[in-house]
């Protein structure tokens, strides 16, 4: 998947790529913007899509690292630290989530720095294995640090999403599911904009070059480890923010949940299935697969409905290693 040995001829058609991207973006934006109107008062549908948007943001954040060719199996570490960081700051210190959410992002960045120091010397499979192992450390520490984190019991009564005040006008994002939905929507859009900026900037060029052929990238003057570290830190920061949003959205967290394999696997699966080398792919995959899982497979198979993700991942790796959005743009 890193070094393409595909024999299929892809037409490198810039026009087609732009068209597909614009169409996807426009349609997605319109649908998501009007979704609360379309589903009216159906809280369940809205809740699922709020969650799907949050997972889309996770997948986008994962892909900030993924574009450099590194596959992380341990993003739950950043997610969990973000969730716990923000929840504890708001519970214990009574700070507003407006403040605790970005701080939690910084906590996750700090953890990202640790991961970087240990794992960035590793490549490919060994980097993936190291991240897989790394999650255990914050998980066990959080579970054991009873005095601070209340251990494996988890945290309840976390404050909801915050209120935005501008003079007399205010929105309480925690008050209704529609408001929460729009907050997560805006966050995902901002993140999408940022990912677009990074991918299109020369930093994105450097990350792509590192992914495609590291030795040559180094030889043309790219400081490989600096770029890999910055992409890891950005990825960690936004994963932490998403984790913090999750904590305030769901208002209950426990170590086994937020550090669980689920939150490591999900962004990786969405990014790989959607297309690690595209901007929109990971988000699209999240917004399609998660609702399909929740609306179709969950009612059919209450136990074991997540086999869908496994199956989709297997099919992608075997038949469409660059992901389906890449295929759509370059077919």
């Amino acid at each position, binding site marked *: 998947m890193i070094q*393409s040995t595909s024999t299929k001829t892809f037409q490198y058609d810039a026009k087609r790529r732009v068209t597909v991207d614009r169409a996807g973006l426009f349609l997605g934006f319109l649908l998501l913007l009007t979704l609360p109107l379309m589903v009216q008062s159906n809280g369940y549908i809205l809740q699922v899509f709020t969650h799907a948007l949050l997972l889309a943001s996770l997948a986008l954040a994962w892909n900030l690292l993924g574009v450099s060719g590194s596959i992380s199996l341990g993003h739950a570490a950043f997610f969990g630290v973000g969730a716990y960081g923000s929840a504890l700051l708001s519970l214990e210190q009574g700070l507003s989530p407006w403040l605790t959410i970005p701080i939690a992002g910084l906590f996750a960045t700090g953890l990202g720095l640790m991961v970087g120091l240990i794992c960035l010397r590793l490549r490919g499979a060994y980097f993936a294995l190291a991240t897989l192992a790394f999650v255990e450390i914050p998980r066990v520490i959080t579970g054991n640090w009873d005095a601070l984190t209340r251990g494996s019991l988890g945290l309840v009564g976390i404050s909801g999403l915050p209120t935005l005040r501008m003079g007399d006008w205010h929105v309480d994002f925690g008050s209704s599911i529609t408001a929460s939905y729009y907050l997560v929507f805006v966050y995902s859009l901002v993140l999408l904009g940022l990912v677009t900026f990074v991918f299109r900037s020369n930093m994105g060029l450097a990350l792509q070059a590192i992914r*495609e052929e590291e030795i*040559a*990238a180094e*030889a043309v003057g790219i400081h490989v480890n600096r770029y890999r570290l910055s992409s890891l830190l950005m990825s960690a920061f936004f994963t932490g923010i998403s984790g913090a949003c999750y904590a305030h959205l769901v208002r209950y967290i426990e170590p086994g949940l937020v550090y669980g394999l689920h939150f490591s696997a999900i962004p990786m699966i969405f990014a790989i299935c959607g297309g690690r080398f595209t901007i929109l792919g990971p988000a699209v995959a999240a917004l399609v697969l998660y609702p399909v899982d929740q609306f179709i497979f969950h009612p059919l198979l209450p136990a074991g409905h997540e086999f869908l993700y496994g199956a989709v991942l297997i099919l992608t790796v075997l038949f469409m290693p660059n992901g389906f959005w890449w295929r759509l743009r370059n077919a």
Partner: protein
Amino acid sequence: MEVAERIVILLQLKSLNKTFNNFCALSNIDFSVSEGEIVGLVGPNGAGKTTLFNLICGRYRPSSGNILFKGIDITDLKPHAICRLGISRTFQSSRPFPRMSTLDNVLVGHIFGKGFSLHTRPEDREMARELLEIVGIAHKAETLADQLTLSEQRRLDLARALATRPKLLLLDEVAAGFSPILVKQAIQLINRVRERGVSLLIIDHFLNLSLKVSDRLLALDHGEKIAEGPPHMVMRNRDVLQAYLGLRHQDEEED
């Protein structure tokens, strides 16, 4: 003597050694490349030519000895830093960025070869396109690099290396396996590169290029320098003939 004084030494290797797990890949190499010079690096398989390149470019660290470039000690620098100082290279088996367009491949060299800017300006693209024209693959600018033929990939490698605006360019087997026509084109290309004020160090195992373009040859065998000098002198050197053709037996009989 006056002529000699005007020659500026660009690259200087001082008693360079490299061993891999007790295997001596290079021993005591002393050598220099002057500004504007084209030097051919010849020798049989396993003589240490590519190892020497990897040492100069910072991929390997020498076991002992120093490398000076424009008077700066670059022995311990990382590859990207060495590139920014003005040494750039091509690879024996070319290493393009496969899933990036040909133009983007060159653009990467142009943008990172001398520093960093956050955004690509239109003139950067112009530069990249110009280089593609020089190496003759401008018509493939929008093709993904892994769709190029082998000889086009070599040209791309060269264009990307040139895009970093080097003072010294290291070419690793640019013309290996080329037909006579392609070799001729390669020679023209090398001369054009030299006109841009770039010095070249060329690995040329099959000698189909360096005899025609080099000012000087350096011959290696088993990691040791066996001859150095003008091409026709080096090619008459007995050690070189021996290394290449295994003429020892015949020689001894003549003696």
